[in-house]
């Protein structure tokens, strides 16, 4: 593999930004946001430069690496701090730094009233650095560093306003649930090392087909657990809704466009594992399918605009995971949807932020309405994102999501039918809840309080939204034109197992999908545009709505199954430590002291009893002698 010496700058620049901003403290308040943005932008610049270089190289020479230094080297366990930039990671690099830079710019204005804006930019830079490490690391262990790094950044950013206890709790919840996923990644790495003696991507890829299927299945499942944690997939999805506690740009960048898609990256990156472990692959598909429905259902009931979008994110990533679980045919579509989703969802989140900015940080959509007039640019950019997520041609989502639906149907047999139908229904529900968001927010009558003075956001905020909107419109077309992305990624994946059995013609799939979308939109229209929307959430709703409002009982479930027993166990152990273990030691002490006090009684002060004791001793000796002589 060709080596490069400049990859490290991708990471080093934002990392330096973060370090400077954190160490400089308040001294950097004046210019911190500028430095942060500049660092992110320069990293984007390096990324573009690398893309150009890569385009210039012939296909087989496109991946390049850089060994920074020997990181861990013990026995057979050798891990270098090494970077790998190939066709897959460059997509992520550009998405992360590109969208990241836009969000930096947006944040300059969005956070301008926060006295801790510098710290915010420091965290953003830290996140960019960690996320780049995640996608650039050339081994699972390097990836792991970035993996936990983004978890840390996410924790810091969700809890950015941690003076509110609920936000602090949300950040902790996110970190802990991510750690469960991280544990999965640890296991995967251990399995890789124990079975293949290596943890680098190249090494595992080389040895994977020699390894036993059981090992690979185990590794695959553990990778899936990791992916589920980071990408808020079932059953580790519960943190994402709460993560909306972070400032909205964070939600856009981390909890929509980039970090939460790391799971998709991981599965795609580990294609060589999953291709050889069908059981694990099947599980991936199942998890994706469940989550896409799960998220979609939650989305229908949320009145908090950010939580509705978060549910949507969960659902869309479900699509990606599902696609990634479909094997070589699906990887490219998963990545494509990931990229287009990055644009439109980030755009919509920024739009939501813009709305909140104009509405005194109100997030309840029932208190919105008719904002179209007050925030035209936001409306347009949000609307373009809306069309994209619905999959209306020619917007971005149309290309990516239809591909996934089509691939799902093509998976073959009952599996194909089930997956296809699931994705179609998901599309309909998506259309429903997104339309609901649009209607509640931008149309209808105003329902906001009098002290709200909705206004359009300053240009620093709408400019990034506009750029992302352009992405929402065009990215799908550009990426799929001539199967551009598919061909670009093609050399990375093992295609020998590919089967080209079409259940439906693409056009049929598109038609079905569009029909479903139309149905979803129509229902939403009937339900929200045709009748008055109450500014408080109605209580007399069906049990399903209630359950959906409570995130399908996910928190209740976790609470009942993990938290309560965990707390009980902790309390018990704390008590037992004192009572049983320490108690046993104290008990021994007390026995010693007690027997001491008892024996003390022998010393009763009477000289005759002392003489008796001597006499008894003498008699005992005689007795012993008698025994000996006998």
């Amino acid at each position, binding site marked *: 593999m060709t080596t490069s010496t400049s990859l490290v700058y991708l990471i080093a620049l934002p990392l330096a930004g973060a370090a400077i901003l*954190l160490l400089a*403290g308040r001294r950097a308040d004046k210019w911190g946001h500028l430095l942060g943005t500049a660092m992110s932008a320069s990293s984007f610049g390096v990324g573009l430069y690398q893309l150009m270089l890569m385009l210039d190289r012939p296909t087989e020479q496109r991946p390049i690496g850089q060994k920074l*230094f*020997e*990181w*861990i*080297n*013990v*026995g*057979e*366990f050798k891990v270098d701090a090494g970077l790998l930039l190939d066709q897959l990671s460059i997509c992520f690099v550009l998405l992360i730094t590109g969208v990241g830079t836009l969000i930096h710019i947006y944040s300059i204005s969005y956070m301008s009233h926060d006295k801790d804006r510098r710290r915010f930019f420091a965290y953003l830079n830290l996140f960019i650095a960690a996320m780049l490490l995640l996608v650039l690391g050339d081994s699972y*262990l390097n990836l*792991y*560093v970035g*993996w*936990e*790094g983004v978890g*840390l950044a996410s*924790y810091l950013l969700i*809890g950015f306003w*941690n*003076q*509110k*206890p609920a936000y*602090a*709790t949300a*950040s*902790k919840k996110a*970190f*802990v649930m991510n*750690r*469960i996923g*991280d*544990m999965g990644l*640890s*296991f995967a*790495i*251990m*399995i890789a*090392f*124990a*079975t*293949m*003696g*290596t943890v680098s991507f190249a090494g595992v890829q080389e*040895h994977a087909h*020699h*390894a*036993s*299927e059981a*090992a690979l299945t185990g590794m695959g499942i553990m990778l899936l657990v990791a992916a589920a944690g980071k990408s808020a997939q079932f059953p580790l999805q519960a943190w994402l809704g709460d993560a909306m506690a972070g400032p909205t740009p964070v939600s856009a960048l981390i909890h929509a466009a980039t970090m939460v898609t790391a799971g998709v990256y991981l599965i795609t990156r580990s294609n060589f594992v999953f291709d050889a472990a069908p059981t694990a692959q099947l599980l991936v598909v199942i998890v994706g399918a469940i989550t896409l429905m799960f998220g979609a259902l939650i989305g229908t009931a949320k009145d908090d605009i950010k939580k509705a979008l978060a549910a949507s994110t969960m659902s869309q990533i479900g699509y990606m995971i599902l696609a990634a679980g479909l094997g070589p045919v699906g990887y490219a579509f998963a990545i494509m949807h990931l990229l287009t989703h990055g644009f439109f969802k980030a755009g919509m989140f920024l739009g939501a932020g813009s709305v909140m900015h104009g509405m005194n940080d109100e997030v309840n959509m029932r208190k919105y309405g008719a904002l179209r007039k007050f925030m035209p640019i936001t409306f347009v950019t949000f609307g373009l994102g809306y069309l994209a997520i619905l999959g209306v041609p020619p917007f971005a989502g149309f290309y990516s999501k239809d591909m996934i639906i089509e691939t799902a149907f093509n998976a073959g047999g009952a599996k194909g039918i089930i997956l296809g139908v699931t994705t179609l229904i998901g599309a309909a529900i998506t259309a429903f809840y997104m339309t609901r968001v649009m209607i509640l927010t931008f149309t209808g009558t105003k329902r906001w309080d009098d002290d709200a003075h909705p206004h359009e956001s300053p240009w620093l905020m709408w400019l990034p939204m506009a750029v992302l909107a352009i992405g929402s419109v065009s990215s799908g077309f550009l990426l799929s034109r001539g199967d551009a992305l598919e061909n670009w990624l093609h050399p990375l994946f093992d295609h020998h197992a590919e089967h080209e059995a079409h259940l439906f013609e693409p056009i049929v799939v598109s038609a079905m999908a569009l029909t479903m979308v139309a149905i979803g939109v129509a229902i939403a229209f009937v339900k929200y545009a045709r009748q008055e929307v109450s500014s408080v959430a109605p209580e007399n709703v069906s049990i399903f709505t209630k359950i959906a409002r409570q995130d399908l009982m996910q928190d209740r479930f976790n609470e009942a199954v993990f938290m309560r027993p965990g707390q009980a*166990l*902790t309390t018990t*152990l*704390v008590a037992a*430590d*004192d009572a049983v*273990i*320490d108690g046993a*030691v104290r008990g021994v002490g007390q026995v010693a002291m007690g027997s001491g006090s008892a024996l003390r009684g022998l010393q009763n002060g009477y000289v005759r009893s002392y003489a008796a004791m001597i006499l008894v001793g003498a008699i005992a000796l005689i007795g012993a002698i008698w025994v000996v002589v006998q």
Partner: protein
Amino acid sequence: MKWLSLLMLLPLAGAAIISALPKSNEKAAKQAALATTLVVMAATIAMAVGFQRDNVDLQFVESYAWIPSFGINFALGVDAIALVLILMSTILAPVVVLAGWNEAHGGRWSVKTFYVLILVLETMMIGVFAATDLFLFYVIFEAMLIPVYFLIGGYGTGERSAAAVKFLLYSLFGGLLMLASIIALYVMSGAQGGHTFDLDKLSQLQMSSTTQNLLFLGFFIAFAIKAPVWPFHTWLPDAAKSATPGTSVLLLGVLDKVGTFGMIRYCLTLFPEASKTFTPLIMILAVISIVYGAFLAIGAKDIKRLIAYTSISHFGFITMGIFAMTSQAQSGATLYMFNHGFSTAALFLVAGWMIARRGSSTISDFGGLQRVTPVMAWSFFIAGMSSLALPGLSSFVSEFLVLVGTFTRYPVHAIIATFGIVLAALYILIPVQKALHGPTTAGNENLKDLNLREKLAIAPVIAIIVVLGFYPSPLLNVINPAAKHVISQMGFTDPVPSIGDK
């Protein structure tokens, strides 16, 4: 150059100087202590530079006849493992002195006495790792209890004397068990070619497997109490809660390492067969320690007890690494000992500053410190992240090495232990949330942030944590040959990757 005896003499010289100072001049005592520890640190580093890292024999060897009629020598020497631990101890010493500049003031006795005790303890810390004569090791092992006992009982807080006594009795009990084993070894050596305490010669003794098992237990229980391994741990939270932060750092960071160090140096070397016999049991104890310590840390209401419980969990990892008998786990365990010293030091020192400012060590008394005292809060946070083994910080490398090394031979143990990392997230983030985050609660509004001295004390610790997280090679390269040597002495080789099964 007689490096090791020089290292042991320097702190004693410092102690002598301090005791010659007038009692009223507390500042001079502190400065002298700081200067001494810095000199010792410099000397240690100078010595470490000359260490030949590929040579697995003992280096810087010295030996003087001490009690010839028992075959006892004042024999010193280090391998890489001992060197690393001495390095850790001597780096921590000035940090502790600087960080705890004022912690001697609440004590029963003078500031002078405090630093004399600290310096005497430093001599013993060096000696206990450098001793190559079993008798010398034992003498220091036991004698170092005394200064610590007085440091806890005389300068601590709360139930300090009860905690000091508990600490002393537990340790003495363990020590006496070890003494019984040592006596047996000594007598056997007399029967097999002359009384000796030389480690090399003792390791060649012939003994029945029953004897070996019993003697092993004598040593292991002593070390397990010291380390501490579940269920011998209950002294630690009390001692750590009552000791001053600086003392706690030395206690958890250095003294407890004597336990794990002893397991490598003495249990494995002297009783290889018994070590193998007991490995299944010890692995279980280690895993219990990991999970149990973590749960108790989650349930802890007092910040110092919490840190103590996290240490129990961490010592579980170290013990597991030692007995897993793979080069990754063994190297990881030694590296873990080093790293744990610093991450616990950071946690304890910052917690100590927090407690000193707030006047309480109950976690729920704090709140919203991040906004009041950002530097202090950040220091605590980074230390906490190191404790939960966040990648990029030093503990991660060692913890992961232990896990991956254990997994290749004991997958089930490693899997259960890995659950510890989720629990670690909880036990660190719960205090972080309660103390640093949330609204600033009453009583915390006017706390002062770290001053320059405190920043100077904590900065090197955090720097070591970060640098070794990214670049552990300098240490690992020193540790690896020694760890490998331990494994091969025991007749183990790393499990071979199972590729080709298919």
